[in-house]
């Protein structure tokens, strides 16, 4: 089907203004709303065949605005051609086509297409006035607008079908040139009238066109351009800080948020009592930022100063003195709360606070937090003392772990849960505990997100690992695993934290030993379950680096059992990914698949089975032992001699020789966990296996040749499997 759109009529273009006014739009949603408005407007214009000039989108808390330059007055008539079925096609097909195209059978044209007579529907769509197109487009934009959260309101909401918007939609300004584009959406009609600043301007503002919109709003104390407001806040905040002899602690998130909360931003600096600075600066900053959206300042030495900067939405008559004073009181109230907590909490030692953990249930099936802490402490001790992962002082690790959750029952963390860990660190320091301990308490939740820094101090690493392992093992043991999007106990995050700790600190932990130490006994299946979960997370983590899930699958077995060392699986999967990215790797994989397919088809199990029957599981296991070398060589040559009752073809011989070299080399490299070397050994098989397939007929007529060649392929497969389970690799 062809669609032909002729160009738009060249006429002097008009500018289009759309303003959607509503009650206060959440600051965090405004950037997304601007993008959505532009996207939907473009969609509508594209669908109508209208080309537009530059598009500008602005937002304030109370309005979204879009200006599109140079819209044509009308679209040109469009001729649309649709190719239908050939002449002589069944009636049903023809009727279906007419229905789809919306034309009568009688109006169809017949044309020649490559010697076949074919029906065509030709539709002439007349040009439409831009104003009419926009009148249709605006309601469509509003109806299709996607907000992170939207609501119903007012009398119309007696039906759930009523319009949804982020907050009640109160007005629409739609002007093309100087004329109103008339439309109506759920009782809201478009016009030229808008409102100014909520308090600085009363009465209606009649907008003339796109050009005087921002000007008239500015006169009514509204700066409609969000970027201009951001600049005003950024510069204004820096200026008031400088005037007070301080330095603004820059915070772009706060700049954007405050610009989203104001139509006429006025940064104002206030002071709080200096005494409050005795509480940890993080608590002050957190309170100021999160609860009050204030900037904070530093003095010349880079220390937090007793100042805050709020962003008012009015030009107050008294220069903002009352506003600042009010904000100061609110902050003072919050800071006195923080100071009260700080003082009360330090009346007890962390060890005393831990008593409170006995009253807190960790999970109804898993006992109290106090019991959890005991497990974590024992495991942290084991990690350092027995597993040497990390190397450090096991007594410090145990002490830090024992105190790691004490801050959960402090007042400060009760009030600001996001300060867990951090406050424990402060309290530990305040009571004079070793710095390793206070730092381990402070950082043991890390890493929290994918970009969070990973601890490397041994005591911290031990506590952090033990805490995460305990979460994972405890919940797995009672059968709780994340499902779909549900992960209420953040086990995926714990697993990722474990992986990142292991990676950053190059730890070699055997999961079965970890589980044994954690539970003081073997727990059948638990190490495997943990390993599987960690490897799933590893697959997600490494996906962006090109290490595919199936590469990890191919690397997860060690000496015939699930590999209990996640670090080793990762190293192997990474080497595999690198290898398969090379030409040798890709070709070897193709050769492997071909060999495996033949063996499968022939149901050939090869020499592996044979060797197993001799009771000699791996004839090459002792190849490095100088005492055994002669014996093994003799045995190997005997095997070759016995099996080979004909003169091999050159390509066959070449593969045999290559295998004889590559197999021990690969085995040796694997034993040494040098996976790149193992891959290199495999690479040496690529040319011989290619040549073998090119030149040798596997299914030879002579049974002895066929058997030997299938054995050879089986040996090749075995050699490859020693390095990685290529059968798990997809594609």
């Amino acid at each position, binding site marked *: 089907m062809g669609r032909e759109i002729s160009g738009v009529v060249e006429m002097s273009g008009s500018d289009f203004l759309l303003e959607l006014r509503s009650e206060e739009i959440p600051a965090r949603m405004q950037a997304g709303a601007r993008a959505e408005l532009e996207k939907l407007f473009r969609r509508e214009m594209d669908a109508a065949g209208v080309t537009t000039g530059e598009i500008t989108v602005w937002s304030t808390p109370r309005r979204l605005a879009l200006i599109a330059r140079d819209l044509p007055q009308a679209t040109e008539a469009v001729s649309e051609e649709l190719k239908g079925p050939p002449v002589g096609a069944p009636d049903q097909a023809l009727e279906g086509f007419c229905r789809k195209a919306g034309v009568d059978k009688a109006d169809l044209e017949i044309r020649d297409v490559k010697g076949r007579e074919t029906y065509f529907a030709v539709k002439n769509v007349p040009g439409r006035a831009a104003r009419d197109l926009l009148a249709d487009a605006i309601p469509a934009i509003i109806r299709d607008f996607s907000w992170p959260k939207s609501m119903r*309101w007012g009398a119309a*909401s*007696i039906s759930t079908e009523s319009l949804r918007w982020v907050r009640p939609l109160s007005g629409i300004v739609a002007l093309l040139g100087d004329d109103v584009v008339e439309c109506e959406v759920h009782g809201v009609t478009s016009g030229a009238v808008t409102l100014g600043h909520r308090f600085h301007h009363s009465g209606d503002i009649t907008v003339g066109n796109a050009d005087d919109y921002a000007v008239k709003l500015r006169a009514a104390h509204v700066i409609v351009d969000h970027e201009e407001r951001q600049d005003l806040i950024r510069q204004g905040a820096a200026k008031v800080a400088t005037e007070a002899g301080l330095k603004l602690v820059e915070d772009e998130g706060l700049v954007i948020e405050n610009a989203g909360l104001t139509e006429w931003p006025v940064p104002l600096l206030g002071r709080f009592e200096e005494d409050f600075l005795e509480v940890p600066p993080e608590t002050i900053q957190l309170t100021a930022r999160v609860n009050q959206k204030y900037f904070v300042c530093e003095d010349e030495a880079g220390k937090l100063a007793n100042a805050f900067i*709020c962003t008012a939405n009015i030009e107050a008559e008294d220069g903002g003195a009352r*506003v600042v004073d009010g904000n100061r*009181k609110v902050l003072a109230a919050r800071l006195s709360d923080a100071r009260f907590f700080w003082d009360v909490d330090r009346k007890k030692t962390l060890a005393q606070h831990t008593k409170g953990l006995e009253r*807190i249930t960790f999970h109804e099936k898993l006992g109290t937090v106090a019991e959890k802490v005991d497990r974590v402490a024992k495991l942290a001790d084991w990690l350092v003392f027995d597993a040497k992962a990390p190397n450090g002082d096991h007594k410090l690790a145990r002490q830090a772990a024992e105190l790691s959750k004490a801050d959960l029952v402090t007042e400060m963390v009760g009030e600001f849960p996001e300060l867990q860990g951090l406050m424990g660190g402060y309290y530990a320091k305040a009571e004079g505990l070793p710095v390793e301990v206070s730092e381990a308490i402070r950082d043991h939740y890390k890493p929290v997100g994918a970009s969070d820094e990973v601890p490397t101090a041994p005591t911290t690493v031990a506590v952090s690992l033990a805490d995460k392992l305990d979460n994972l093992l405890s919940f797995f043991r009672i059968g709780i695993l994340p499902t779909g999007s549900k992960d209420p106990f953040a086990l995926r995050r714990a697993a990722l934290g474990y992986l990142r700790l292991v990676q950053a600190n190059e730890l070699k932990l055997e999961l079965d030993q970890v589980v044994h130490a954690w539970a003081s006994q073997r727990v059948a299946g638990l190490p495997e379950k943990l390993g599987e979960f960690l490897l799933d997370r590893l697959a997600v983590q490494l996906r962006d680096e090109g290490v595919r899930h199936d590469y990890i699958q191919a690397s997860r077995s060690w000496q015939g059992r699930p590999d209990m060392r996640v670090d080793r699986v990762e190293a192997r999967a990474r080497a595999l990914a690198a290898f398969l990215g090379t030409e040798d790797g890709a070709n070897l994989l193709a050769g492997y698949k071909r060999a495996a397919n033949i063996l499968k088809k022939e149901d050939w199990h090869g020499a592996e089975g044979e060797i197993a029957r001799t009771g000699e599981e791996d004839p090459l296991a002792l190849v490095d032992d100088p005492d055994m070398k002669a014996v093994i060589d003799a045995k190997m040559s005997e095997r070759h001699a016995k099996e080979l009752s004909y003169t091999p073809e050159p390509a066959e011989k070449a593969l045999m020789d290559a295998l004889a070299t590559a197999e021990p080399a690969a085995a040796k490299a694997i034993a040494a966990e040098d996976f790149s070397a193992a891959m290199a050994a495999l690479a040496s098989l690529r040319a011989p296996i290619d040549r073998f397939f090119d030149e040798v007929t596997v299914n030879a007529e002579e049974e002895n040749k066929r058997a030997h060649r299938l054995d050879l392929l089986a040996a090749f497969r075995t050699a490859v499997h020693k390095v990685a389970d290529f059968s798990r690799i997809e594609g």
Partner: protein
Amino acid sequence: MTCHSHHMRGAPLTVFYASAIAPRMDRNPQKSFQDMILALHDFWSANGCLILQPYDMRMGAGTFHTATTLRALGPEPWNAAFVQPCRRPTDGRYGENPNRLQHYYQYQVILKPSPPDIQDLYLKSLSVIGIDPLKHDIRFVEDDWESPTLGAWGLGWEVWCDGMEVTQFTYFQQMGGFDCKPVAGELTYGLERLAMYIQGVDSVYDLAFNDRGVSYGEVFLENEKQMSKWNFEVAETDALFDLFNKAEAECKNALAHNVPIAAYEQAVEASHIFNLLQARGVISVQERASYMGRVRDLARGSCEAHMEKEAPAWAEKYPEWSK
């Protein structure tokens, strides 16, 4: 009650009337807590609201008043304003914190359906109690409201006055798990905070309760001290657990007998007992979810039963409405 009326009847009525003074209509909300409340009553009464009295039960927020929860359901218009004492056991500070109380007052306005000029009405109510928006920075800051306990949520704002949250402004979208049809607008003023602001005092206890020299502290400081101690240290937790279970059972009993308002009261009771248990620190993070789920089931069950009971009459009166 009976005894009291008996005493009243016996009192010399002439003396009582002789000492009475005609009510003053010149409210002074900037110098008196009670005048501020009366000014709000005047304002919302003039704007079509029923002026109701507090619900006579311990509850965590004015939203629990049946005039809010149960009236938010169904199609009937409903405009009401009332003061509701709120109990937040964990917010107690033994009377030592100038802003935190375990017992305080909320002023609730519920307007169903939400009128188009609801924000303007609200701002006018602020000017009535003396807040000039050209001197003070009034802001509508996103604050969506969700009460898992009530199976309810809404979108709206916290209203800031110079950085202080003075009102919670919510458009109810769901209540008791049901869509609100139509949507009600709810305004919840924090009365003490507003009064502190208007009167310019730094401690709630320094508020003038009236304009004859009685302070908020004289009325409530001792209560705060004792109740904080009881909430945090004294309340017998085994008894509380028991009370919780009993309220739960009674709620179910009331539901079984199709008296949803009575069932709802028991849900409110269970919710408060749960808050007390929280204050005593005997409920862990994980258990918390389970208790909240139990309270939610009670509250939702009551709302559901209320809906079932009323729906036929509502549907008959408002044909465009459906459950």
